């Protein structure tokens, strides 16, 4: 029989989440660091930044949580700090940012999102990505290519591997590997990514049938948009996704349909995050109204 009382359950969940991201950490440092060194575009020592940044992000996250709970909220112990999922969220934020984005900008936006998330319960990663995209676009520096990438002509296999011009963690292959690792986490909502992908594929195949897009375009769009990474990690974050089966189906259908339209029809990949953010915002709003007016 299991232990009756365990104060470290969330720590273990957190560890499993971080462990599942390990293949992506290694892949991103290979793609953006080691390959750049091979191309002669980067110093060997500098290439290690892609391995050290995730650690820096985790440390910053714990520091932020410590300041929030121990200093602002005056908690008596470190329970909430240790059991926080924010390090995992922030690591996801790092992986949805571009390889050449400045780490200080990323950390600044993380601090901002961290503050907002304590007030409104909206999807943390989606909010981060929208803010990052908006700021970088306003300053005209939004670019997902790394230091050596010049062409955007990649084979489907390379795109599937995640070697194209895309965000740090966008690798379909490694996202699938991470998903397999996450299947061992009993607290991970594994049915949500599957349902979203099924819905997405049904709508996309419908678009292919009606000749809106070609079949190859559909595949390229999946690999290029980081859809699998987003579906595996961002959409299934427990805090912002429903629990009941019926609600999960509704959630997955809405996301699947919107994703397919944004990715295939408008080719506006940030629309994925806008959908996730919009859903979590409306969901929080409904919850707030219910709590305020319906609970006696």
């Amino acid at each position, binding site marked *: 029989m*299991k232990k009756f009382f365990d104060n470290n*359950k*969330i720590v273990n969940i957190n560890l499993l989440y971080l462990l599942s991201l390990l293949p992506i950490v290694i892949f991103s440092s290979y793609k953006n660091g080691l390959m750049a060194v091979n191309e002669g575009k980067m110093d060997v020592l500098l290439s290690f930044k892609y391995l050290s940044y995730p650690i820096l992000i985790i440390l910053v996250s714990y520091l932020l949580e410590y300041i929030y709970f121990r200093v602002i909220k005056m908690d008596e112990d470190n329970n*909430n700090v240790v059991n*926080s999922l924010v390090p995992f969220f922030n690591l996801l934020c790092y992986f949805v940012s571009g390889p050449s984005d400045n780490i200080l900008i990323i950390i600044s936006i993380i601090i901002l999102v961290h503050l907002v998330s304590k007030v409104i319960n909206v999807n943390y990663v989606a909010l981060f990505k929208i803010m990052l995209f908006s700021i970088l676009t306003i300053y005209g520096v939004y670019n997902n290519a790394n230091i050596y990438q010049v062409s955007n002509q990649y084979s489907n296999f390379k795109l599937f591997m995640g070697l194209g011009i895309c965000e740090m963690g966008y690798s379909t292959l490694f996202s699938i590997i991470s998903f397999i690792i996450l299947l061992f986490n009993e607290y991970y909502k594994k049915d949500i990514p599957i349902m979203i992908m099924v819905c997405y594929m049904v709508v996309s195949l419908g678009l292919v049938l009606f000749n809106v897009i070609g079949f190859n375009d559909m595949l390229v769009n999946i690999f290029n948009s980081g859809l699998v990474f987003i579906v595996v990690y961002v959409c299934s974050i427990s*805090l912002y996704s429903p*629990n*009941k089966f019926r609600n999960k189906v509704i959630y997955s259908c809405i996301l699947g349909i919107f994703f397919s339209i944004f990715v295939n029809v408008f080719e506006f990949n940030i629309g994925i995050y806008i959908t996730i953010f919009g859903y979590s915002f409306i969901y929080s709003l409904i919850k707030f109204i219910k*709590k305020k007016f319906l609970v006696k």
Partner: protein
Amino acid sequence: MLPVRIKYSKSELESIKVDSFVSPVKVSYVAMDGDSIQVKNEAYVFLNQLLIVRSNGIKVYSSISGKVSIKGNNLVILNDNKENNIRKDKYIKNIRTLSKDKMLDRIKSLGISYQDGLLSNVLDSGKEVLVFNTMDMELYQFSNRYTLLDNFIDILNTIDVLRKEFDLLVYIIVNYDDIEIRNKIASVIRDYPLMEVKYIGSDFPDNYNTVIYKKYLNIYDFDKILFLDPLITYKIYMAIKYNSVLSERYVTLWSNEGKNINVIKVKYGTSLKTLVEYCYGNKGCSYYLNNIYRRVVVKSLDYLRVNDKINSVYVSDMEATRESKCINCGKCYKVCPMGIDPVDPLDKLKDECLKCGLCNYVCPSNINLISMEGRVE
């Protein structure tokens, strides 16, 4: 799949220490507002003498003999260890000879409790089915098990008498994995041909009456079913045969994640603190009453006495678990046998909560989801 099974390992069952603690220095009872105290201060009370009549008709009897002292609402009886019984020699030889009306009269006059009401009212309310649940309600509780093992034939005879006199259909619920009870039932059941045995598995909380009803007996109207356990059945037996009440019962005390289990026969009204000290010395800094997952935690046992509602005490070395923020993992909803989403304040089913505590068990944030205060909103 539910995460908890009521299947104890061989070593766990072998480690159970069955003991008795039936000579306490004193016992005490509390009279609530509206209750009437039936004895005078400094009077001598006999064993089984009426002490208090509760406002709902339930009667409280002395479990020892000795001198009583009344301070406010508190009655304390100092044990003279003589066990002078006020009702001795008043028994019938064969309980089958007693008619239904006489049986009801005896139970009514004794004011025996059943849940929060009177047993006589429940028996007289036109029940059609009797479900005799041999299992203990919560994990690591063996009070019913040992009451049944000690008084096996008397209890089964009582069930048979009730079946005959009240014209009831009888189902006996047995845990298939409890080999000792299963074998005992199998060896005698041919003597009771009109009783049907239903074996159920070990998933917790399949032993709860509501779940038994939902899974196996939902062809009947729930209100027409009388659920009895070994303890209450033995009380009926005592009432019918001796026109008397039980003065002692089994209580399970356990600690160390189930590795140190004591099943103690103890007098009603004995201080739980004394009992815990008897088993574990001064160990423990928090105590969980009955179902450990329900998290009814008390820091001190000073004011708690053995009664019908406390079946087990878990003696914990740890301070109460620390709660952290809900991560909305949905595990509580997944394991709930009633399909309730504990974190949804508007869940329509929340009134049907069995308080089995499975949600608390799986919650990674250690939130007490059963108590309304702990419900995440």
